[in-house]
C-alpha cells in the first residue's frame, strides 16, 4: 500500500486543518475497498492501487475540493472588479502624468522615457494589487456589492448610442498625457537641443496646452463614467476642431525650424517629418469628428 500511503501524505498536506484526519480516514477506507474489489477481479495489487488512485484524481485537485472556496473573486462580483480595475488603472495613469506635469517642473528636472515607464508600471502594479486585495476581502467576508443594484435606467437619458471603446479611450488618455509632458519639455524622447524652432511654436504653445489638456480631462472622464454622453460628443467635436485650428498655422508657417546642426537629422527631413505628423494628426482629428457626429445626428 506504499502508493496509497504516499498519495494520502500528499493530500493531507493540502487539506484544511479542520477535519483533516477524518477526511484521510475516509479516503483511506475507500481506496482500500476499491483496491480490494479490483484485486479480487484478477488484477495485481499494484495495478489495483494505481486504478483506485487514478479514479480518485490528482492530490491537489482532490484536496482542493475540500476547501470551502475555490476562487479568489467569484462570478458575482467579478464584473465589478474588472470594471473598477480598468478605471482605477487609467486614473492612476492620469494622476501619474499630472504629477509629472506639475511636480517635475517645480523640481527643475527632466524625465527620461525609461524612468517614466518603470515608475508608471510600479504604480499600476500596486494599484492592481490593492484593488484585487479589496475584492478578495469582499469575496471572503461574504459581503455583497450594491454597485449594480443602485443602477437606475433613467441615467440612460444622458447617454448616447456611441459605444465607448475602453481600450481606445484609455490609450487616448495616455497619448494626451505623454504629449503634454513632451510639449512642456518635461519628457524628453531624444536630445533636441541642437534644433532651434521657428516662432510659430511659441504662438501655439498655450493653445495646444489648453486644448490637449481639456482632451485629457474629457477622455479621463469618459473612462470613469463608462459611456459617451451627448455633451461629451459635442465637446469632442469642438476640441478636435480646436486641434485643426492649431495645425493650420503650422502647415502654413514659413519657418518651421530655424536651425538644425549637420550632425543630427538634416533640416529638410525634419520639416517633412513635421508636415507628415501634422497631416496624420489632422486626419485623426477629422476621423474623431466624424465618429462623434454620427450618433449626434440620430434623432433623440
Amino acid at each position, binding site marked *: 500500500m506504499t502508493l496509497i500511503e504516499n498519495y494520502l501524505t500528499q493530500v493531507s498536506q493540502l487539506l484544511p486543518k479542520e*477535519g483533516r484526519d*477524518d*477526511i484521510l*480516514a*475516509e*479516503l483511506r*477506507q*475507500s481506496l*482500500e*475497498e*476499491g483496491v480490494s474489489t479490483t484485486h479480487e477481479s484478477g488484477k495485481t495489487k499494484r495495478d489495483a492501487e494505481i486504478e483506485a488512485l487514478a*479514479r*480518485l*484524481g490528482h492530490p491537489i*485537485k*482532490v484536496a482542493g*475540493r*475540500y476547501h470551502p472556496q475555490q476562487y479568489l473573486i467569484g462570478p458575482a462580483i467579478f464584473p465589478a472588479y474588472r470594471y473598477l480595475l480598468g478605471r482605477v488603472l487609467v486614473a492612476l495613469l492620469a494622476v501619474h502624468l499630472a504629477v509629472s506635469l506639475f511636480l517635475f517642473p517645480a523640481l527643475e528636472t527632466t524625465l527620461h522615457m525609461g524612468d517614466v515607464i518603470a515608475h508608471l508600471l510600479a504604480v499600476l502594479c500596486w494599484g492592481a494589487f490593492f484593488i484585487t486585495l479589496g475584492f478578495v476581502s469582499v469575496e471572503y467576508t461574504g459581503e455583497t456589492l450594491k454597485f449594480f443594484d443602485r443602477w437606475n435606467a433613467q441615467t440612460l437619458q444622458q447617454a448616447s448610442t456611441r459605444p465607448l471603446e475602453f481600450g481606445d479611450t484609455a490609450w487616448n488618455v495616455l497619448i494626451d498625457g505623454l504629449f503634454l509632458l513632451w510639449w512642456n519639455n518635461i519628457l524628453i524622447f531624444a536630445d533636441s537641443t541642437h534644433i532651434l524652432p521657428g516662432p510659430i511654436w511659441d504662438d501655439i504653445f498655450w493653445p495646444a496646452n489648453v486644448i490637449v489638456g481639456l482632451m485629457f480631462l474629457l477622455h479621463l472622464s469618459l473612462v470613469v463614467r463608462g459611456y459617451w454622453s451627448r455633451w461629451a460628443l459635442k465637446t469632442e467635436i469642438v476640441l478636435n476642431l480646436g486641434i485643426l485650428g492649431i495645425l493650420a498655422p503650422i502647415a502654413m508657417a514659413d519657418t518651421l525650424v530655424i536651425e538644425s546642426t549637420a550632425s543630427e537629422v538634416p533640416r529638410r527631413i525634419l520639416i517633412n517629418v513635421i508636415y507628415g505628423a501634422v497631416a496624420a494628426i489632422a486626419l485623426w482629428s477629422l476621423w474623431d469628428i466624424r465618429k462623434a457626429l454620427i450618433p449626434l445626428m440620430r434623432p433623440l
Partner: protein
Amino acid sequence: MPPDEHLDKMRLELRRGVVIIAVLLQLRTEHYGYALRQALEAHGLDIDEGTLYPLIRRLETQGLLTSEWREEDRRNKRFYVISAEGRSHLKQLLTEFDSLFATIDTLRNGRTR
C-alpha cells in the same frame, strides 16, 4: 476552445446540480462513500470519488446529511444519511427539478405550458 470541450463543459454544468439531487435521493437510505458511488453508478450516474467525497462532506457541513463511523466487514466506515433538513431541501429541489424538466419537455415538443 474546441467544440468537444464546450460540450464537456456544458455537460459538467448540467450535471452539477443534478448530482446533488441524486446524492440526496440515494442517501434516503444509509450508505458509506464507496457504496454510494457504486449505487449511483448502478443507476447510471458515474461520478468520480474525488468529486463525490468532498460533496457529501459539504452537504453534511450544511446540515443536509448526518454521518457516523461504524465498523462493517471488519472495516471502519463512515455512513451518511439524509437529515430532516436535507429531506426538506430535497423536496424543494425536486419540485424545482420537475418544473424545469416539464419546461424542457414542452420546449422540446413545441408546446406551451
